[in-house]
């Protein structure tokens, strides 16, 4: 699989990451190796094999859907980098 600049740009966009020129060359090389390495699984015949998706063998256990107050607004805001008394603040999204 060829790892080119276009693919790196697309993946970085999806992952919300940025790579400057130097970092881009490094991640390109790393991904090439990593993808080359994991492609080994293609050697295995998995015809008629069901993917294993859930590790837990538990069945659903239902509980009453009752309201519980676990945290206060003040606590919920505690770790936000930018906030006022009630809300987390972000840069303006809608412009006039």
């Amino acid at each position, binding site marked *: 699989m060829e790892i080119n600049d276009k*693919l790196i740009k*697309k*993946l*970085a966009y*999806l*992952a*919300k*990451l*940025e*790579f400057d020129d130097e970092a881009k060359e490094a*991640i390109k*090389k*790393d*991904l090439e*190796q*990593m*993808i080359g*390495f*994991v*492609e*080994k*699984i*293609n*050697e*295995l015949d*998995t015809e008629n*094999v*069901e*993917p*294993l*998706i*859930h*590790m*837990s*063998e*538990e069945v*659903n*256990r239902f*509980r009453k859907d009752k309201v519980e107050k*676990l*945290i206060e607004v003040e*606590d*919920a805001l*505690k*770790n*936000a*980098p*930018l906030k006022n008394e009630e809300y*987390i603040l*972000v*840069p*303006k*999204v809608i412009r006039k």
Partner: protein
Amino acid sequence: MKKYTKLTEVQADLKANLLTCQALVKAYLSNIEAKKSLNAFLEVYEEEALEKARLLDEKIQKGENLGRLGGLIIGIKDVLCHKDHKVGAASNMLEGFESLFSATVIEKLLKEDAIIIGRLNCDEFAMGSTNEYSSKGPVLNAYDETKVSGGSSGGSAVAVQADLCLAALGSDTGGSVRQPASFCDVVGFKPTYGRISRHGLIAYASSFDQIGILAHSVEDTALILEVIAGGDNFDSTTSCVDVPAFTEKLQKDEKPIYKFAYFKEALENEGLDSEIRSKIEERLKGLALAGHEVEAVDFPIMEYMVPAYYVMTCAEASSNLSRYDGIHYAYRHQEAKDLQNVYTQTRTNGFGKEVKRRIMLGTFVLSAGFYDAYYTKAQKVRRLVSDETQKLLEKYDFIVSPTTPTTAIGLGELINQDPVTMYLADIYTVQANLVGMPAMSLPLFQHSNGMPFGLQLLANKFEEEKLLRVGLELMK
């Protein structure tokens, strides 16, 4: 103070008035101070631990009984939430973050009177095998400070190794408890997937992650497991299978004859140190001489386990770590002007190199056009590995192997190489996480290079009791 290696010794001395909890905490605090250069602790809860010790001493004086973990001084990997305490996954992304609640395991430890002495260094978001990917610097191996601790629970392993606490909690996604345990001469235990609630564990790869235990003895491992295991309303993947009274059950002096299987491919692996191989082989002969059955089996799927593991864990990581967006969790890049920039700049500056690599691989295998060829394919391989392993464990009690292909390597040796070289060192440990089974590393060997290494045993799901029992036997 004498060096304690078992909680029962601590509890006996407390009972006989030869020791107080306060003296015990002070002794560990002075060890921590003296061994600061190891970089095992990210934060030490000095006052809080002393205060808790004082309260416990008062209880003892009044003739009250302590909880089952009374006298246990324990350290916690920096991926477990602890109410009103910092937790950071050793990442700049969570710098300054304080948890609003405690992980279920923390609640359970505290309820039984354990004293939490601090939080422990690890690889960033538990991604790494040497602890060199911590944003707070590497943890050094206490046996040789030019060597790594292993990872990702490196701080947890070294804290126990260097007598900075009696036991520690770590997390194990592909060997992150067992591998550093092997490098640091301690017991490392990863339970069955679902045995312990993951509520309050910072997620790396949710279908692989399990909280694990690092201790000097199998006995302490058993007791801590018994306390922290069990169903939890906050984590629906936690099993409701009864948690046996491990400690009580292990008291019974049984000497079962076991059937051990080992993989030919595991011992013939090119990357395996020849002395580790010969010492393991010698031990296997010893087991056979002691009356156990030991058989070599073929496991050709072995070489596909690490590639499949990295496809799935990176996929899950890329999804789990999307929550770190600069909005909710403590760190936001200051210069970002618009919302897209807040996300991108925060993530670009907040995450370290290895985390970004794994997010990128995970994003790739989940992206349109590649999903079936990589992600679904890996899930099918997971099914095959699971079925094959299950089949073997119908015939054998344990699968036995080295925990690691080498002893602790030198600082800087691995991180300057390509990432795949590091991933290949997980060859023996990833199976347990791929199939959700319990596994344990026992500190049984010393290499002629002066460093320790472990023996790994893997058992069927929910067979922790059997695993602990054989561990007890082998440690004798």
